[in-house]
């Protein structure tokens, strides 16, 4: 993570001690900080206002040493070690309007930290801040958790609430815009939604501490083997923010077996597959330390907030864990590469990726920092895979890349001869053609690159970005997934809901209608797992059917006679993925049980069946009959079951068997019918051969 200083506002001399800043949760363009006993408000991009000179309010000419919290109307600070102030700069509570300093007279408190809030809890109550502490007057309560609240009729009140904490809170984590707060003590991680607070008299109800739905059981799979800890999960907030289709984000705390060290984790969980991914150690023990983590966009699919980012840096001495305004600032110091002094970064400006920060000293003033461009791009590229998945290919010794979730319309490419060096993503190039559909495939045909979507294909001509030309093709039906799109000598073959389509570089045609009948049974919710192969003769499609989550069916289309004479067969071969090696004519398949296989070998012990077309008896105008079926078959010892189907009604089954190729006939049921067909079945795993043709007599 790298920050660059893009501007400094030097209207105020911050050479004296400058305390940490506070961003206004209701006004993301503003932040507050205290310097030289003056309270300032800085508003993006360049407006600095001194709100109040605090000197006359401070005792013994001291000044606030930390700005702790900001609520809707006040900033709370700490003076010395045991005196705390709420500075209401524009308070609207009846009888308390105007700028003022409020001494809350908590001289016996030793505040370790606080969790800011500022939300209505209903019933006319408004919680301003929560301060955990050990108050000598309440020793019998152990560690208490205070909520400072405004009751319109009573003014300020302090609410004490025993939350079962066994030790002082060591790290205040977050105020969630949605309405939750989080904190850590040595017993674990706690979270609660503001809507679940209950204000009854001067205390919060007992229900607040164990709000249903805020806790969940952590995954047992991560107990010890994977992470090397014997975790004792204490609390596992179920949801914090950022639901998209399948993902859930949250924080969790893990402790070692001896309970002396705990880690704070940020996790991402796929609620469909129940896989926990991207679990990052944010803080170790008292919030310091941690490990290097990546950045990703957790709100990428959130309709309400589309551009927020969370950024993690490594937790070394100058580590930063900071994020957009609704996320915790676990550690906020960052060493300015230009000056070498600490920059206290508070939060990202959510729309323009700016951070507000103040230097810890040295007269640097207010700094506006911006994530470096390359870092932003890196961040954009980092989301983990979903949907069709990332797909790469190489053309003209240049790698092309699609399929980054949240960047479905992007095309990425690399430097020529240097596939490891990817260039800037090309966004929106397909918007006019694809009607805002995401890219679904990327293939090379006839020396051009074709990017597909469900709405068709775009052709990319040329050898380099300088000469690239984009063409819209005539195709209006495109592929659903790159994994089920296979290049063949005839063109690009891919399935859609109504069958198999062929794209030849100009247009696409439906060439295998039967696919409609087969693919009607596709489990579309798991279609991302489907894949196809071209093995030099057959197009093989593997897909999940019915309610199966794995590919349990295959459709094999023989193209030895060309597209016009395509012939197919269904199959129940299961495969999770495959690869066709055309140099050795070998098809490799894998399955869900971890078996790697080659296709072919012995005859499969699978049920074979074939239903023929129907044949008219006596020209359909008059009922007639057939007396015998002449067959030519090598059953190799197996039994062939023949089921006549007369006028759509199955008749009694006939059976034949032999050990070598035999030409003979079998009598058919008597009766007058308009049409006759047959179903043939073999269940024995032997090399049966049906030789063309058979005859009806």
């Amino acid at each position, binding site marked *: 993570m790298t920050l660059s200083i893009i501007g400094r506002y030097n209207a105020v001399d911050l050479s004296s001690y400058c305390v940490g800043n506070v961003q206004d949760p209701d006004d993301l363009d503003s932040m507050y900080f205290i310097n030289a006993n003056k309270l300032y408000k800085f508003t993006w991009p360049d407006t600095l206002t001194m709100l109040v000179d605090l000197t006359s309010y401070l005792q013994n000419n001291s000044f606030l040493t930390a700005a702790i919290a900001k609520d809707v109307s006040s900033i709370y600070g700490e003076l010395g070690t045991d005196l705390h102030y709420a500075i209401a700069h524009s308070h609207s509570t009846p009888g308390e309007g105007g700028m003022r300093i409020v001494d809350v007279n908590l001289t016996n408190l030793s505040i370790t930290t606080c969790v800011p809030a500022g939300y209505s809890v209903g019933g006319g109550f408004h919680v301003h801040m929560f301060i955990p502490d050990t108050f000598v007057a309440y020793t019998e309560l152990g560690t208490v958790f205070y909520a400072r609240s405004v009751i319109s009729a009573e003014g300020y009140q302090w609410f004490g609430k025993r939350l079962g904490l066994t030790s002082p809170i060591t790290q205040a984590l977050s105020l969630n815009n949605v309405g939750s707060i989080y904190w850590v003590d040595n017993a674990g991680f706690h979270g609660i939604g503001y809507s679940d607070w209950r204000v009854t008299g001067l205390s919060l109800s007992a229900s607040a501490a164990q709000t249903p739905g805020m806790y969940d059981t952590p995954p047992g799979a991560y107990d010890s083997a994977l992470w090397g800890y014997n975790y004792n999960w204490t609390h596992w907030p179920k949801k914090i923010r950022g639901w998209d289709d399948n993902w859930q984000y949250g924080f969790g705390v893990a402790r070692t077996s001896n309970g002396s060290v705990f880690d704070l984790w940020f996790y991402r969980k796929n609620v469909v597959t129940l896989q926990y991914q*991207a679990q990052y150690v944010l803080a170790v023990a008292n919030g310091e330390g941690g490990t290097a983590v*990546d950045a990703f966009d957790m709100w990428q699919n959130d309709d309400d907030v589309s551009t927020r980012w969370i950024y993690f840096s490594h937790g070394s001495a100058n580590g930063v864990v900071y994020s957009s305004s609704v996320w915790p600032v676990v550690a906020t110091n960052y060493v300015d590469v230009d000056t070498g002094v600490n920059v206290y970064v508070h939060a990202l400006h959510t729309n323009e990726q700016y951070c507000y920060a103040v230097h810890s000293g040295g007269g640097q003033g207010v700094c506006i920092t911006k994530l470096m461009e390359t870092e932003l791009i*890196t961040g954009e590229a980092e*989301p*983990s*895979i*979903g949907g069709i*998945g*990332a797909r790469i290919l*190489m053309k003209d010794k240049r*790698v092309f890349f699609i*399929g*980054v979730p949240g960047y479905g319309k992007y095309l990425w490419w690399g430097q020529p001869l*240097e*596939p*490891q*060096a*990817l260039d800037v993503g090309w966004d929106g190039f397909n918007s006019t053609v694809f009607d805002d559909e995401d890219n679904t495939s990327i293939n090379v045909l006839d020396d051009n690159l074709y990017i597909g979507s469900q709405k068709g294909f775009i052709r990319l001509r040329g050898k380099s970005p300088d000469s690239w030309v984009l063409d819209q093709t005539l195709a209006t039906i495109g592929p659903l997934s790159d994994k089920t799109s296979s290049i063949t000598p005839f063109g690009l073959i891919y399935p859609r809901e*109504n069958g198999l389509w062929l794209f030849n570089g100009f247009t696409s045609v439906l060439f295998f209608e039967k*696919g409609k*009948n087969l693919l009607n049974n596709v489990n579309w919710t798991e279609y991302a797992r489907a894949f196809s192969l071209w093995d030099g003769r057959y197009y093989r499609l593997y897909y999940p059917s019915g309610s199966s989550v794995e590919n349990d069916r295959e459709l094999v289309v*023989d193209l030895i006679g060309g597209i016009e004479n*395509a*012939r*197919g*067969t*269904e199959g129940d071969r299961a495969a*999770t993925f*495959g*690869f066709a090696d055309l140099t050795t004519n070998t098809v490799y*398949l*894998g399955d*869900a049980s*971890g*078996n*790697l*296989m*080659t296709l*072919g*070998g012995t*005859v*499969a012990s*699978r049920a*074979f*069946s*074939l*239903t*023929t*077309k*129907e*044949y008219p008896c006596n020209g359909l105008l008059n009922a007639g009959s057939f007396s015998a*079926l002449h067959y030519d078959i090598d059953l190799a010892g197996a039994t062939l079951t023949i089921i006549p189907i007369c006028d759509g009604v199955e008749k009694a089954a006939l059976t034949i068997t032999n050990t070598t190729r035999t030409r003979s006939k079998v009598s058919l049921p008597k009766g007058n019918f308009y049409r006759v067909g*047959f179903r043939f079945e073999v269940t024995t795993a032997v090399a*049966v*051969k*049906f*030789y063309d*043709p*058979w*005859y009806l007599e």
Partner: protein
Amino acid sequence: MASPSQRAPAQRKPQGPPEISFAKGINTFQTNRLLLDPGEAATLLNADFDQIGALGIVQANTPIATGMGRIHSIYKTGDHLFVGEGTNLVHFLVTTMAKTVVYSAFNGDDISMLAYENFLYATEGENKKKVYIPTLAVTEWGIENPLTAPSGAVGDTGGPSGTYSLYYTYVAKYPDGTEYETDLSPVATAIVDTAKIEWSYPSTAPDSQVTHLRLYRDKSGVTATLAQARVAIEAKQTALEQSSGMVKFGNLFQTVIRSQTNKAVSQNMVADPDVIVGPFFVDEVEIGTVLYVDNVSDTDLVQGAPFTRERYRPIFGV
């Protein structure tokens, strides 16, 4: 033209017993089985078309390796078979099926792979890993550009004189001769007066594939890069063409001139002192070294190759 009465009578297809053929498998979405073409099947399950003129039963799979997790990705290049199972990328040497787990920290999603020369590039969209196939060494796709500037201290007497801009690059060298080089580092300035420049630079690399650093230095007082020089040259060309009327010769002339000029640029033989390019290659050092004593004269410096990587950013992910 023959009249209708002169035409030969139409050949009537001889009526024989109806044929039942298996040649066409399934194809059309025709629910009326009576209307299917001869040879078409209404349904067909687990058939095998391999033998022309006969229909068989599908063949089984032959296991070649077992005991892995769910396999979601397979790619083969030469005798090297790469399999994605769980979070692992597994390599099999096809001739022996010897198994090696080459990387174990993918996120478990499908891995898209491609081979280029002796490298396998693999990504599931989150991790982007490069496998040097001969050794199965795994690195990132690219190399992060240097983020810190070198420094140049005044050393012993007996070196160049002037104010110099210093840069370095990261270089990955592979046993097969493949080399990758990053963009230039941030610049540092060294001021010396007939003294050696004592370079210092990072002794560690951002990625294990980095084996060397290349040191680059401007000639005293010259800071133009190759790209800047080319822009300047082309501007001069355009001005020259327009003032001389040479544009009338059309694209051919321009192509020839530009080709020659580009060649001149690349060989650093541009006579115009305003467009002397740099920075110039000084020397190459192995990663892990911490000090380089530079006494390369300006004359020798300009004989070296200028840095030519105008843009080299492993943006996507590294």
